[in-house]
């Protein structure tokens, strides 16, 4: 039993199990406490309400995995810029909404490219660079318009309200896209050279270079993916808000980082599991749902609870890491005594 537990803690998927357990636990607490909580629709709503955050978190997880203190602080600002660009384009021009979305995605890619290029070419700290592009994107959003701009476009609104119904339940297009992104990212990370390369450069960049991986190109791609995800997150965000505003997506980068950490990603890079980060977002969503069901609690309780959860997970990671190194020592002793 002890051995089983010890191996479980040391296994690569342990943080994922904990996240999954926590999610089930929170959902169970909600279900027991409130009538009407335990339903498929409440569960689906978690995806529907958090689709933008899920997509953004997928992107930011790539950057964290890639190491070199990888992080992308610009995502929230890109979300805001995306919404605003869509709103302004559809207000002032007659460009087809789909083309508008393509333009927005392109903007996201360009921001990612700028981040990646500055980080890899000049070897600058991701934290500072993406902080810069965060300010830049927020500023540009404000230059486009200081006030909230509503999106009034028949075709776009229809797209925004698209949902898939089955029996009594429904799920929005945004949520489907979010799930698709998580799935794609999981497959990419597991089954492509690029994906394994992301883990490798996050684990030990110098070794990865010596083993023949194109470190710089991988890192630039990672930031491009993050930019792309942020823009896509922005589009799904605009489907919910149907407006562009400078304060959209404020602090989203921190929510995304928190989700990623709760989902088991280690901020040092090289360790993390994409479905875990999905659960990280869902845990935050469940807390919000519980608070809204409860009715009297204020929204800032979410922040506090998420803070506590973050704390829990981070301490857990610290414990797991020390447990692993202990195991490794034991292992070394074992093999040493076998040698003699």
């Amino acid at each position: 039993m002890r051995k089983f537990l010890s191996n479980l803690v040391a296994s690569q998927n342990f943080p994922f199990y904990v996240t999954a357990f926590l999610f089930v636990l929170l959902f169970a607490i909600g279900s027991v406490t409130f009538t009407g909580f335990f339903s498929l629709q409440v569960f689906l709503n978690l995806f529907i309400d958090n689709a933008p955050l899920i997509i953004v978190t997928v992107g930011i997880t790539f950057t964290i995995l890639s190491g070199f203190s990888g992080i992308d602080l610009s995502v929230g600002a890109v979300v805001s810029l995306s919404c605003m660009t869509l709103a302004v384009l559809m207000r002032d021009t007659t460009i087809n909404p789909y083309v508008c979305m393509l333009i927005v995605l392109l903007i996201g890619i360009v921001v990612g490219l700028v981040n990646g290029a500055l980080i890899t070419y000049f070897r600058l700290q991701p934290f500072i660079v993406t902080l810069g592009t965060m300010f830049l994107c927020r500023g540009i959003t404000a230059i486009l318009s200081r006030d909230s701009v509503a999106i009034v476009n028949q075709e776009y609104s229809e797209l925004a309200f698209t949902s898939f119904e089955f029996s009594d339940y429904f799920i929005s297009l945004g949520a489907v896209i979010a799930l698709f992104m998580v799935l794609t990212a999981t497959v990419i990370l597991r089954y492509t050279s690029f994906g394994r390369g992301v883990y490798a450069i996050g684990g030990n960049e110098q070794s990865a270079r010596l083993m023949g991986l194109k470190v710089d190109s991988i890192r630039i791609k990672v930031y491009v993916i993050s930019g792309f995800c942020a823009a896509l997150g922005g589009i799904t965000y605009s489907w919910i808000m149907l407006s562009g505003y400078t304060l959209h997506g404020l602090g989203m980068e921190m929510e995304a980082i928190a989700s990623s950490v709760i989902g088991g990603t280690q901020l040092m890079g090289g360790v993390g599991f994409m479905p875990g980060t999905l659960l990280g977002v869902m845990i935050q969503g469940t807390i919000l749902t519980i608070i809204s069901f409860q009715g009297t609690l204020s929204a800032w309780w979410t922040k506090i609870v998420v803070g506590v959860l973050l704390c829990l997970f981070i301490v857990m990671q610290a414990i797991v890491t020390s447990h692993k190194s202990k195991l490794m020592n034991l292992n070394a002793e074992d093999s040493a005594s076998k040698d003699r």
Partner: protein
Amino acid sequence: MSDCEDYILQMRHIDMFFPAVKALKDVSFNLKKGEIISLMGENGAGKSTLVKVLTGVYHKTNGEIIFDGNKIEPTTPLASQKMGISTVYQEVNLCANLSVAENIYIGREPRNSIGGIDWPTMQKNASKLLFDSLGIDIDVTKELNFYPVAMQQMIAIARAIDTKCKILILDEPTSSLSDAETQRLFKIMRSLKEQGISIIFISHFLEQIYTICDRITILRDGSYIGEYEIENLPKIELISKMMGKEVKDGEIESDVEKSKPRANNYIETSHVTVPGKVKDLTLDIKEGEVVGFAGLLGSGRSEIAETLFGTMLKSSGDIYVEGVKVSIKSPMDMMKHKVAFCPEDRKVQGIIGDLSVRENIILALQAKMGMFSHISRARQNKLADYYIDLLRIKVSDREQLIKNLSGGNQQKVIIARWLATQPSLLILDEPTRGIDVGTKTEIENLAVTLAKEKGMSVVFISGEMGEMVRTCSRVMVIRDHVKVTELNDDEISTAHIMQAIAGDYHGKSV
């Protein structure tokens, strides 16, 4: 050149300039197919520069490199790796967070029918490769950091073999391996040799070089000294060629007279235990005595030192300094009892790379005095200059960053750091590892002199038995975290220590 075909690699008339310094002067290096060659020289002789020219880290100024019959210009480590020149460094260059299988195959993973990574095949291939070529049977799905450094090195070698390397450069591979692990590595090296792979083996352990190598190439001060068959070059001659001076026959065995211990104990321990590290240790160290801790790597010799210094905390037992029982919660407690400790891993535990030599020297003294009794700049300068002079540390000036010094000089700075605290017990853990022979002798002599002249107690820990034979007046033998025996005065010899470690010799006194 009729024997041209025999050579897999010929480096001819290599010159290499650093800004303002000529690092290699007309150096030649030849490597035959399927031989193990050692590149020898003191620190700064140009060994690593030459290897780096070959692997494309540095670029030569003049000369030519002929590899496998073709002239090559290595540009990057990766490019030379692709040509078949692989290097396994002392610090393993793999990704600790990935599985063993991935570490072997990353960048060239087997694919399944739809183009994704074929994990089952990759794992099967990795197991097979490790078992067939190295005789290792481990779970390849586990992360690399699950295994000890020795195993990681084997995995790195497996990767090199699988990339069809023709030349394998092993840079100080044995310095963190136990004897058993080293033997295993040698077995693998021999079988690689039979497969026709040429190996460049760089090591500071003379014994090992004489065990495994066919030939030796010697460099000194960036110049080529010569190539020798191992049978034709006695050790003593090798050393004199490396140092560029004649060495008297006996000098390498023992030169300075050993220190005579005084009557009273400086430090004693009774039944000290650190879980998993030190078992029931009882020892005493006298004033003016040089005590050696002998044992294999991982035997607990460094752990005992760390327990005496307070970086590792005992769970039971007592420690007495000058007969008074002391309680230890941190290194500071022992520093206050005049204990000093030069740790084993110079780079990680010793130097503060981006600080100047001066700051590195005064650091421990400053820490001991507390942050509020600031040592004035004038006194710092005086202290630094004094020790630079005393230990003959080669620096451009005291404000030079320590990371830019050679290993030997870094070690001297660390010793200076501790001498500045006026210790009564100085623990030197592997003070000569990776250091050239000249500096090595200097440090050995220093240990003896300090004990003799200042009555300092010195603990000398080394993996090289010869060193301990030369310096120690008493040797404690440690095996499996237990002090098994002590050797005194005349009993101390390489053979006795080895036998004691192996458990065949129990000493006269026991």
